[in-house]
């Protein structure tokens, strides 16, 4: 049974919907700017990929009666676009929602916390009511009416690829007919300080896969795909925009926050995805890299790619050079970008690349380029050694 994509929605620092993001990717215009929306000592200096919409604007745009977390607002933004673009008219389908997030409602919890720290009775409880990751997902699910099966995954930065994998299984096993899957994460003081303490934030716009890369830029946003079974596709008379043909989920089992030098976990995830899709490395036309820009990730991901693809390395690029690293949302956002590569028959550039990493010699795609694309691989690797890779393919049937 094939898992078809019929809808997609995305919000990030390079655009508030599919078309805007696509145009930014085509034009090479990134969204990395000094931090402005968060009360932090890094405001005004640290480069990040913020979404240029306020919570108040989103709350009123979605007609919400109560204030919810920014993670939920960004999620609703992208989820609503994905549902609208999917063209589903039947009302009796069982609809599932699987979302990845790492911070959940932290953007409001960290606002609550300083007063609570001084006095256990202080702080507005409305700021923590949606602290839990699952609670954020429920808010989005209720807003879009996808409530027959709702769940949340947090495997750090691979969360939303794992959400797409789980949603595919829910459809395959007949638990739901339609599933919306991806992820959402808002920028928070918590994650900014966390990555700062790990000393893996670049003070400049990031340079993924470059020899002089000096760390990542954090970003925020959300990205979702609407997935359906063959049965739904046929009954709805819809065109498949792409197919989830393969995925792999492995663990590096090397270190809590560092990848193994040879990228054994990422190698295994990519290899599993290829096997599941029944294609060979030479069939992949484009890899949307995890490519965070950290010394460690890019070296091990590059080594794993060299080992798996040998002399056949396809076009590769990290769109995190445009959006920043959106943590639990990146797999969802990049799955939408991968769908764009299939639909628009193109590959995207990897900004600010000048010199290959000595140990890998890999040169990513520098600029946007139109070309035939049948299979796209998208990688997402996270803390805790969680490695996931997914393959999106063109629907060749009837063409």
């Amino acid at each position, binding site marked *: 049974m094939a898992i078809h994509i019929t809808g997609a929605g995305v919000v990030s620092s390079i655009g508030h919907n599919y078309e805007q993001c696509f145009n930014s990717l085509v034009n090479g215009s990134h969204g990395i700017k000094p931090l402005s929306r968060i009360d932090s000592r890094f405001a005004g200096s640290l480069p990040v990929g913020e979404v240029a919409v306020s919570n108040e604007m989103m709350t009123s745009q979605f007609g919400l009666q109560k204030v919810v977390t920014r993670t939920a607002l960004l999620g609703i933004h992208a989820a609503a676009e994905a549902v609208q673009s999917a063209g589903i008219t039947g009302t009796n389908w069982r609809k599932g929602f699987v979302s990845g997030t790492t911070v959940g409602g932290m953007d409001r919890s*960290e606002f609550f916390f300083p007063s*609570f720290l001084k006095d256990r009775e202080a702080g507005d409880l409305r700021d923590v009511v949606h602290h839990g990751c699952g609670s954020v997902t429920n808010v989005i699910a209720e807003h879009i009416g996808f409530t027959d099966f709702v769940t949340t995954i947090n495997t750090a930065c691979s969360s939303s690829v794992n959400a797409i994998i789980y949603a595919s299984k829910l459809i395959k096993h007949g638990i739901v007919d339609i599933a919306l899957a991806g992820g959402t994460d808002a920028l928070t003081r918590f994650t900014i300080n966390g990555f700062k303490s790990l000393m893996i934030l670049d003070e400049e716009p990031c340079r993924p896969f470059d020899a002089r890369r000096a760390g990542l830029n954090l970003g925020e946003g959300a990205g979702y795909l609407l997935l359906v079974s063959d049965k739904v596709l046929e009954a709805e008379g819809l065109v498949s925009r792409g197919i989830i043909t393969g995925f792999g989920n492995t663990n590096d089992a090397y270190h809590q926050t560092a990848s193994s030098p040879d990228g054994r976990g990422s190698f295994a995830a990519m290899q599993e995805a290829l096997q599941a899709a029944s294609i060979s490395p030479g069939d992949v036309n484009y890899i949307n890299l995890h490519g965070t820009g950290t010394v460690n990730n890019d070296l091990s991901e590059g080594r794993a790619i060299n080992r798996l693809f040998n002399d056949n390395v396809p076009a590769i690029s990290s769109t995190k050079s445009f959006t920043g690293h959106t943590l639990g949302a990146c797999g969802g956002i990049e799955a939408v970008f991968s769908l764009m590569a299939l639909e628009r028959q193109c590959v995207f550039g990897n900004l600010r690349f000048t010199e290959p990493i000595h140990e890998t010699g890999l040169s990513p795609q520098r600029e946007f380029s139109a070309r035939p694309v049948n299979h796209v691989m998208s990688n997402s690797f996270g803390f805790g050694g969680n490695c996931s890779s997914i393959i999106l393919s063109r629907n060749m049937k009837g063409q």
Partner: protein
Amino acid sequence: MRLYIDAIGTIAPCQLFGDKLEVPEADGNVLKCIEPDYSAWISPQSIRRMSRILKMGTTSALMAIRQASLTEVDAVITGTGYGCIEDTTSFLTKITELEENALNPTPFMQSTHNTIGSLIALLLQCRGYNQTFVHGSHSFEHALLDAMFVLDEQPALKILIGGVDEWTESSHAIHSRFGKYRRPDIDGSMTLVNESRGAVAGEGASFFAIAGRRSSVSKSMIESIKTFIGPIKAHDVSSFLNDTHVDLVLCGFSGNARIDQEIEKLMAAIFPHAAIGRFKHLCGEFTTASAFAVALASRILANSYNDLASIGYQQHGNPIRTILVYNRYFAESHSLILMRAC
């Protein structure tokens, strides 16, 4: 797809592994775990850096591995409602106190929910499938469902699956302000019947070594799982079970007598021949209490206890071959897990 439980590791407020099941005495409105000597399981250097949830999670996983006589597993699937809140709170505190300066990264590194599952993978060198569900009180159930999907593809795999959540002082203070728990000055354990004074907070870690095929070590079997959002209706339960005979409905309630009685009536109407038992006075209320319930139900199905008065079961002599675990987490959600003896 059926899941066969080959081994169980549980750290809970009560002792699960003897032949007597004793109701633990709550400390005010909290039931905390009886923690083992972790140094028997984890190296001292590692223990020093680990929060309670990491120690409980990894140790219960190692207990299950040892009991199953396994040296390795193929996949680790974890459910946790709130994840590593001690480390999260600790990092938030430092951000505030040190005004974002000179922060130690360890609590941040260990604050993500997947730290538990990935630490288990690291300790066991398990490079296979690794997944963490963080959907409130359905986290463990959705992990079980995932195990079914994985074993459906590859029935020969050995999977470690668990549910874990930790109690912390700050999360208790916040949940208390939402009115979730009974007044702290009422001492003693939760009563078995018609508890109307609110829930007692709990915590726990239960990991299971799971196989897709029955074997000589199989202790019990999980047949089906279903989660519900909002109020539960008789139709939901009966359509899920399809006239299955049930010997015991093991209920987890949240300390609201009115709702508890309604559910009890509903269960009694659907299963007129089943006994009704309760489990939450043994583990307290927390988002992965259903993992404790599955551990308890598995032990009951394997005939491990001399008597079951402490869960409110009086029908001595009748063999218990089928248990329906019903769990409610406050008013938010419900789940059903159908289990059978092996």
